[in-house]
C-alpha cells in the first residue's frame, strides 16, 4: 500500500492554482461581468406569505424611461423543478411565500428597473398560510399546493401525497422497531428543532441569460453545476440541450445554495421579451435572504430502546421538514438524511418516517450537509440523553454502538474494514478535549460559584453523497505544443480547492511537474465534459477518478506513438518526468513534447496526433432504495467523523465561549493538506454559526424579519474558538482516488451536537432547539434556577 512518501503531489499542501487571480482581483465572477447591450433585471415580490393575486397593473411600470420589458406570471406557462415540477417562474394566481417574485422588469439601468418595479400595482387577497409544518400536517390545514396531484415528478424515488402538504414521505423499515421496544430494558423519548438558516455565500446569486435567435440560449451563472442548469432549463422550456450553452466562471461561494437552477430561466424570459439583449439578474443581499432558498427547518422526534448494557435495540424517528413553498432539493434532503437517519450506529431495528412538508415560507434547497446537520443535532443529543438514563458515560455509550466492520446499516449495507473507522474518530476527539466524563451536579454547583462554568461534549457524524445512482464525472487532458496540459472539467471550484486536487492527480499520473497542469477556470457545457453536479462531497472523489483515468488514457496514446518511433512494445515503455523511454534501454527516449502533437520523422512522415486523454467515472454498484423499506445501497462512500468541544458559559449572560473544538475525520487519504485544513476550519466555523447564532426569524404573518446582516449574524474573525484542531484518520477507501473519500460537507455536521452536549455537561440543562444563543441559554439557566427554588420550598 502506497504511503504519502511515495507520492510526489498527493497529500502535499500545494498552493491553490487560482491564488494569483484572486489576490490580484483579476478573477472574474458573474458579479463582475458586463456584456455589450446588457440590460438589468429586477423583481417585485410578494409581501404576503400566502395570497391570491387579484390583479396586476404594469401600465405605469412599462412607461418608465429605460424599461424594455415587464413580465408577469400569467404570460409564462412554464414550470420548473428538480425532482417535483412544482414552481412557476413568476407567481401566477397565487404567491406562496413572502419574497416570491411576482413581476419582473428589465431596463437599461438598475435604477430604471427599480423605479419601474415601484410603479407596479398589485391587488392581493390574503389567504390562510401554513407557517408550521406540524400544523401543515393537520387534516384541515390549508393546502400550499392544492394541485399536487397534477405535478410531474421523479417516480420511483419520491412519494408525494396529493391532498396533503406532504411532498415526500421517506420510509426506512429495518427489522421491527415497535416490537423491539417492548423488549428493551430502557426506553426514552426526545424532540428537537432546527430553524431554517441561509448559506450566506459572499457572492449573491447572479446570472446573465441571453435569448438568441433559433431558440438558442447563452447563460453565464454563479452556480455549482453547469449541466444541471442546462438540463433543467431544457426540461422547463423544451429547448434541446445542444442549443443551451451554460458558462460558469469564478463563483463566490455556494454551499449548496447554487446547486440547482434559480434565476437563469427568469433572466432568459426577460431577455426574450426584450429583443434578445443579455439580461443580468443579481440578488441584493436582502433578496438573497428572503427570495433565494434556504436550508429547511426540521422538527425531529425519537423513541429509543436500549439494553441495560447500553446496546441500542430500537430507534423510531420521525422527521418533519419545514420545506417551504417549493420542493426544489428539499424533497431529496428529506430522503437522503433518512438513510443516515440513525447516526453512525448499528441499530438492529429502525423505523424512520421522514415527511417533507410544504409551508408558506422561503423554500429549502441543498445546504452543506444535505439534512445531516439537522438530523444529527437530534441524534447526537439523543445519544447523550440516553447515556445519562442508562448511567453510562456518553463516549462509552457511543463506543458500544458505533458501526464497526461487519455491522449492518439501516439500509442493509454491510460495513467493511475499508468503510472507515468512526471509533477512531471518537477516540481522537475525546482525547483532544481531555474527556473525563460528565460532571456531577455537585461539581457543577461548585464550579458555578465562580460565575462561569465549563463543559465538554462529543458528537459523531457520518455522511455519504446523496446522489442519483447514475452520477458520473468526465475529464479531458488536452496537451499543448509545449507539453503542458489543459485539464478540462465541469466540476465547479467555488472555494473548496477541487481544481488543485484534480491537477495534483493529473501531475501525479502523467509524471509531469504540477506547474505544467493548467485548469481553465470556466466550465462551459459546449466545451468541458459532462459532470453531474458539484455537491454532495463527491467532486474530488469522482473528478479525481475521471482525471486518473484520463491520464492513463493519455499515457497510453503517448506510448502507442512512442512505441512506433522507439520500435519497442508498449508494455516495455516507461513514462517519467515528461519523457517516455524503453525500460531496459533508458537512452532510447522521447520527450512528451515530441509526441503529444503527433510525431514527425526526419523525412517528414508523421504519425499519431494531438493527445487527448479521456476519462470518466460512474459510481459503481449503487442501487435505488426500496420505496417501502428504504433498503438498498445508496452510498458511494461513507465519511465518518467526530467533533469534541470544550466550552465555557457565562452564567449571568448565557454567553458561550468555545475554548476548544477538535475535529477528526476519516478521509482515507489526504489529497491536499492545505485545502483540507481550510475546508475543515471553514466548515467548523460555519457549523458554529448554526450552533450559536443563525436562524430565520418570522413574524406571526410569515414575513421574514432578519433579511440582512444587521440581524442575521454569521461568525466574524472575533468569534473563533480559542483553539481548534483538525485530525485525519486514514482508512483507505478502496475505490477512492489514492484511497481518498469526500470531506467537503462533513466538517460542519455535528458541531451543534458537540456544543449542545458540552452545554449539558456545563449546566446540567438539556437544550433541544438551535441556535444556542446567549438569550436562549440564559433563559434555560433562569428556568432551572426557578425550578430548583420551587423544589427547595
Amino acid at each position, binding site marked *: 500500500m502506497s504511503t504519502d512518501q511515495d507520492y510526489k503531489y498527493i497529500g502535499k499542501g500545494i498552493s491553490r492554482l487560482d491564488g494569483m487571480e484572486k489576490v490580484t482581483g483579476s478573477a472574474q465572477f458573474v458579479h463582475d461581468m458586463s456584456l455589450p447591450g446588457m440590460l438589468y433585471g429586477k423583481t417585485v415580490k410578494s409581501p404576503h406569505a400566502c395570497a391570491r393575486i387579484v390583479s396586476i397593473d404594469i401600465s405605469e411600470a412599462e412607461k418608465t424611461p429605460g424599461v424594455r420589458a415587464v413580465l408577469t406570471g400569467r404570460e409564462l406557462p412554464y414550470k420548473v423543478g428538480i425532482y417535483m415540477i412544482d414552481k412557476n417562474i413568476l407567481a401566477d394566481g397565487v404567491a406562496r411565500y413572502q419574497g416570491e417574485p411576482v413581476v419582473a422588469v428589465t431596463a437599461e439601468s438598475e435604477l430604471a428597473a427599480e423605479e419601474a418595479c415601484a410603479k407596479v400595482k398589485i391587488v392581493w387577497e390574503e389567504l390562510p398560510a401554513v407557517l408550521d409544518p406540524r400544523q401543515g400536517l393537520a387534516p384541515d390545514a390549508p393546502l400550499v399546493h392544492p394541485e399536487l396531484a397534477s405535478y410531474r415528478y421523479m417516480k420511483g424515488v419520491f412519494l408525494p401525497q396529493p391532498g396533503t402538504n406532504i411532498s415526500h414521505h421517506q420510509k426506512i423499515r429495518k427489522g421491527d422497531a415497535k416490537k423491539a421496544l417492548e423488549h428493551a430494558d430502557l426506553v426514552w423519548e426526545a424532540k428537537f428543532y432546527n430553524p431554517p438558516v441561509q448559506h450566506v455565500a459572499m457572492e449573491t446569486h447572479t446570472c446573465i441569460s441571453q435569448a438568441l435567435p433559433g431558440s438558442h440560449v447563452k447563460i453565464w451563472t454563479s452556480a455549482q453545476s453547469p449541466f444541471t442548469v442546462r438540463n433543467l432549463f431544457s426540461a422547463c422550456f423544451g429547448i434541446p440541450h445542444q442549443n443551451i450553452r451554460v458558462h460558469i466562471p469564478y463563483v463566490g461561494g455556494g454551499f449548496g445554495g447554487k446547486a440547482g437552477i434559480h434565476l437563469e430561466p427568469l433572466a432568459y424570459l426577460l431577455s426574450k421579451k426584450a429583443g434578445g439583449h443579455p439580461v443580468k439578474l443579481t440578488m441584493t443581499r436582502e433578496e438573497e435572504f428572503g427570495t433565494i432558498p434556504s436550508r429547511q427547518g426540521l422538527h425531529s422526534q425519537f423513541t429509543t430502546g436500549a439494553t441495560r448494557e447500553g446496546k441500542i435495540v430500537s430507534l423510531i424517528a420521525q422527521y418533519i421538514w419545514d420545506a417551504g413553498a417549493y420542493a426544489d432539493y428539499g424533497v431529496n434532503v428529506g430522503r437522503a438524511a433518512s438513510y443516515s437517519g440513525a447516526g453512525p450506529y448499528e441499530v438492529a431495528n429502525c423505523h424512520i418516517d421522514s415527511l417533507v412538508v410544504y409551508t408558506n415560507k422561503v423554500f429549502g434547497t441543498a445546504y452543506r450537509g444535505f439534512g445531516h446537520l439537522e438530523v444529527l443535532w437530534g441524534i447526537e443529543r439523543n445519544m447523550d440523553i440516553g447515556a445519562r438514563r442508562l448511567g453510562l458515560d456518553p463516549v462509552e455509550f457511543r463506543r458500544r454502538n458505533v458501526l464497526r466492520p461487519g455491522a449492518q446499516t439501516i439500509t442493509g449495507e454491510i460495513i467493511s474494514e475499508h468503510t472507515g473507522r468512526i471509533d477512531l474518530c471518537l477516540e481522537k476527539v475525546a482525547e483532544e478535549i481531555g474527556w473525563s466524563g460528565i460532571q456531577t451536579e455537585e461539581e457543577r454547583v461548585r464550579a458555578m460559584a465562580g460565575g462561569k462554568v465549563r463543559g465538554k461534549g462529543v458528537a459523531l457524524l457520518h455522511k455519504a453523497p446523496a446522489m442519483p445512482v447514475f452520477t458520473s464525472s468526465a475529464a479531458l487532458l488536452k496537451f499543448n505544443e509545449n507539453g503542458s496540459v489543459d485539464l478540462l472539467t465541469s466540476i465547479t471550484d467555488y472555494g473548496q480547492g477541487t481544481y488543485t486536487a484534480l491537477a495534483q492527480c493529473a501531475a501525479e499520473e502523467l509524471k509531469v511537474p504540477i506547474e505544467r497542469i493548467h485548469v481553465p477556470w470556466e466550465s462551459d457545457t459546449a466545451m468541458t465534459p459532462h459532470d453531474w453536479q458539484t455537491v454532495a462531497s463527491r467532486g474530488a472523489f469522482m473528478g479525481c477518478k475521471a482525471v486518473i483515468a484520463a491520464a492513463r488514457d493519455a499515457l497510453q496514446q503517448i506510448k502507442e506513438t512512442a512505441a512506433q518511433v522507439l520500435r519497442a512494445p508498449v508494455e516495455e515503455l516507461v513514462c517519467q518526468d515528461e519523457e517516455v523511454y524503453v525500460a531496459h534501454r533508458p537512452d532510447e527516449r522521447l520527450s512528451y513534447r515530441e509526441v503529444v502533437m503527433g510525431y514527425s520523422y526526419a523525412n517528414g512522415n508523421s504519425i499519431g496526433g494531438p493527445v487527448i486523454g479521456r476519462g470518466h467515472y460512474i459510481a459503481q454498484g449503487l442501487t435505488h432504495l426500496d420505496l417501502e423499506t428504504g433498503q438498498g445501497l445508496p452510498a458511494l462512500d461513507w465519511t465518518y467523523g467526530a467533533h469534541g468541544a470544550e466550552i465555557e458559559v457565562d452564567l449571568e449572560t448565557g454567553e458561550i465561549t468555545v475554548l476548544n473544538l477538535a475535529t477528526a475525520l476519516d478521509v482515507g487519504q489526504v489529497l491536499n493538506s492545505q485545502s483540507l485544513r481550510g475546508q475543515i476550519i471553514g466548515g467548523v466555523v460555519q457549523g458554529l454559526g448554526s450552533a450559536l447564532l443563525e436562524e430565520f426569524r418570522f413574524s406571526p404573518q410569515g414575513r421574514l424579519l432578519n433579511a440582512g446582516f444587521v440581524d442575521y*449574524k454569521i461568525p466574524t474573525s472575533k468569534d473563533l474558538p480559542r483553539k481548534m484542531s483538525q485530525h485525519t484518520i486514514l482508512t483507505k477507501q478502496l475505490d477512492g482516488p489514492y484511497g481518498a473519500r469526500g470531506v467537503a460537507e462533513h466538517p460542519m455536521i455535528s458541531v451543534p451536537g458537540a456544543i449542545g452536549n458540552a452545554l449539558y455537561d456545563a449546566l446540567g440543562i438539556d437544550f433541544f432547539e438551535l441556535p444556542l444563543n446567549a*438569550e436562549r441559554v440564559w433563559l434555560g439557566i433562569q428556568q432551572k434556577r426557578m425550578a430548583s427554588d420551587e423544589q427547595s420550598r
Partner: protein
Amino acid sequence: MKPFQYRKPLSLAEALEALEEENTRILAGGSDLLVEMREGKSHPERIVDVKAIPELACFSIGEDGIIIGGRVTLRQIAESALLQKRCPLLVDAARTVATPQVRNRATLVGNLCTASPAADMAPPLFVLGGVVVVASKEGEQNIPIQSFFTGPKKNCLQPGQLVLRLEIPLLSPGRGVFLKKARVRGHDLATINLAGWVNPRDGAMRVCIGACGPTPVLLAGGDELFRGASGREKLIDGLATLAQAQIAPIDDLRASAAYRRGLVAVFLRRMTRVLFPEEGGWPSA
C-alpha cells in the same frame, strides 16, 4: 438610490443657507444616511456635505473640557492617545461601534444625530454631561445631550439647524466605565449598553443605560444613591432597583425585554465592581 443634488459648502453660512431648503439631508460620515437611502427609507432631493466646513474640524482636549467637532470620526476618538489618558470612557465606547471601515468614516456627531436608543456613544456622553452645540441662522444654541434625544431615532433638530460640535466639561477627577453586550463578539448593535461615571470626591455618580427605552436612560437619583450607600453591594442593590424602575425595554428582534432587564442587573453589578474594585475602603460621603 434615487438621484439628488450634492453640495459641499466651504463655509458655515453657505451650509446654513443650503439647509433652509426642503427635503435636504446632512452628509457627514454617511454610514447611516447612505444605508437609509439604499433601503428606500429616505429620498432627499438635496444633500449637504459638511466635511469642508472649518467650524466642524475642531478636536481638542483642554483643562476646561473636550471639544469634538462635527467632522471628527469615531476612529479619531478611538485612536486618540490624549483621550485615552484623560477620558478613556469615550475611547472604550468608540472602539465598539460597527467595524473599522465604518469607524474610519462615521462621525461622533452623526452617531448622535441618528439618535438610536442603542447608540454606543450616547451613554458615555450622557454621564459626562455632554452638550450639543447647534448652529442656525439665528446663532448658536447649547442643548444638553439628554434633551437632544427625543425618541427612537429622533433628535430635537429643526430644519435649518446644523450640529457644530459636542462639548464635554471635563469632570475632575473621576472615572468611568462603558460596557456593551451584543449577540456576537464581532460587530453588532448593542443588546444593551451602559456607562457609569463616578467622582467620589464630589459624591457624584451617573449611570446611563442604552437600548432599554425610546432614548438612552440617564438614571435619576444616582448621586443621592451613591452618597447614601453604606457599601458597594448596597450601591449595587440600589442601582438595580433604580434602573428596573426607570428603564422600559421592549421585546424586539434582538432580544426580549426580560433578557434586557436581566442583562441590566448583571452589567450594573459589573460596572460597579469596576468602578469600586475593593469592597472595603468604601469612600465616605
